[in-house]
């Protein structure tokens, strides 16, 4: 029996399952670490900006604060009010959390270590998978609002669902010029390292974008309008300031999560930070060259394990930079009013994104 299991892990399928499991666990732990400590960074940064101290009691510089928060969430009373719709009430926090964990599956977080690609799933639907999964996050928020059977959460849930779906269109459209530009990639002319990195991928694969950016410069320089739209849509999709309509404390007492307590409340919070991290990772890959860096030959797929690890480090550094920027913006920008938010999404960004697509296509046509 045990021998059979060992044999199975030696087979090609077993090996790929084993490698996938290692990568999944690695990505999951790093993601959870970033989620925990971006909350800490957020509190420290906000404290610094508002001239306060921030968390400084648990551990040095309050570094153990995330752990203390987690323990506190677990030990709080898990209260289910009598007026809620029980099933949905229980499902909603999980439905917010699951999609934000799933989105990271197709993001290349490094080049190669050995022959293993540093990406969880090399899907040939590529970026479409991400947009599909991101859409699912809306369900959790709508369900949370609906399940509470209470006015503030209901209004909050409906508002944020309208916000999320509105900005999803702009987000999806803003990415298309990138694929137009990077579509000219000729895999046959690339070196062997790239060939093994791109083996069996389709044009929608994110590693192709990274490859193109390594050869031609980051896409933020080629498609700045796309970058601006994507950035704004990212803030809206992850419910961050200045678009944090779902959680406008002053009007809705907190929005869709009012009736939640204990770990259920914390799951909404973690889901938000996890999707923020995933969006930052996506943005790094789409616009900022992913794991590549145009110095010291780091623009090539790794040939040694060390360079592979450095690539992962570069990727994480870029993600952390974007996260820091997102946190910073929160304390610098006032919140939009709801009609301004919808106006910006539907009447500014969608036409702008459409025009961006057409102009990019026409310029490429004129050049060819």
């Amino acid at each position, binding site marked *: 029996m045990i021998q059979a299991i060992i044999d199975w892990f030696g087979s090609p399928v077993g090996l790929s399952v084993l490698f*996938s499991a290692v990568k999944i666990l690695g990505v999951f732990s790093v993601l959870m670490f970033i989620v925990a400590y971006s909350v800490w960074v957020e509190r420290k940064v906000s404290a610094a900006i508002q001239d306060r101290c921030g968390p400084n009691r648990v551990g040095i510089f309050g570094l153990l604060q995330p752990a203390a928060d987690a323990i506190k969430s*677990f030990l709080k009373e898990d209260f289910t009010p009598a007026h809620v719709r029980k099933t949905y009430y229980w499902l909603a*926090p999980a439905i917010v959390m699951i999609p934000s964990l799933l989105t990271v599956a197709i993001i290349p977080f490094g080049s190669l270590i050995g022959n293993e690609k540093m990406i969880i799933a090399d899907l040939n639907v590529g970026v479409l998978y991400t947009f599909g999964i991101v859409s699912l996050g809306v369900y959790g928020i709508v369900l949370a609002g609906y399940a509470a059977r*209470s006015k503030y959460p209901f209004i909050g849930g409906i508002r944020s669902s309208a916000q999320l*779906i509105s900005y999803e269109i702009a987000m999806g459209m803003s990415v298309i010029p990138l694929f137009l530009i990077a*579509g000219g990639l000729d895999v046959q002319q690339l070196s062997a390292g790239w060939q093994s990195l791109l083996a069996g991928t389709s044009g929608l694969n994110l590693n192709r974008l990274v490859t193109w950016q390594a050869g031609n410069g980051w896409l933020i320089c080629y498609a700045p309008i796309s970058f601006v739209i994507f950035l704004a849509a990212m803030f809206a999709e992850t419910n961050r300031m200045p678009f944090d309509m779902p959680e406008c404390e002053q009007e809705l007492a907190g929005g869709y999560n009012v009736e939640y307590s204990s770990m259920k409340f914390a799951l909404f919070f973690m889901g938000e930070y996890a999707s923020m991290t995933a969006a930052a990772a996506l943005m790094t890959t789409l616009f900022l060259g992913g794991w590549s860096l145009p110095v010291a030959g780091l623009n090539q797929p790794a040939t040694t394990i060390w360079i592979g690890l450095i690539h992962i480090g570069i990727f994480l550094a870029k993600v952390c930079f974007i996260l820091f920027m997102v946190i910073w913006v929160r304390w610098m920008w006032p919140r939009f009013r709801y009609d301004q938010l919808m106006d910006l999404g539907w009447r500014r960004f969608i036409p702008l994104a459409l025009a961006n697509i057409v102009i990019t296509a026409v310029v490429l046509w004129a050049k060819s």
Partner: protein
Amino acid sequence: MEEAQLMQYLPVLMLGALAVVFSFGMLVMSVVLGQKGKRPPVKDIPYECGMIPVGEGSTRLSLKFYLVAMLFILFDIEVVFLYPWAVIYREMLKESGGAILGAMLSFLGILLVGYLYAVKKRAFDWKS
């Protein structure tokens, strides 16, 4: 080939299983570990900043939200159609010249007419 395509999704399934176990594990853990408090009747009232709630919990909504949902479905499907076009665009330019551009411009043109109609009908006007 088909099997290879399905095999791509195996890691996604594994990640999904981890995500499900993690999320529900957290929920169950907090029930097991959490304190058990008293249950006075006031705790079961919906939270409205201390006011006693009046009327139904699920209030009536502006029709605008339904409109947004419908428009979202229309436009989001268009976006999905644009991706395959974007991916093969430069290759097709070499082969067929401007035909691929014209094809998509006509598609986007029809989309634009629909969009302008929605704007004219004040579908995006949230002030009124």
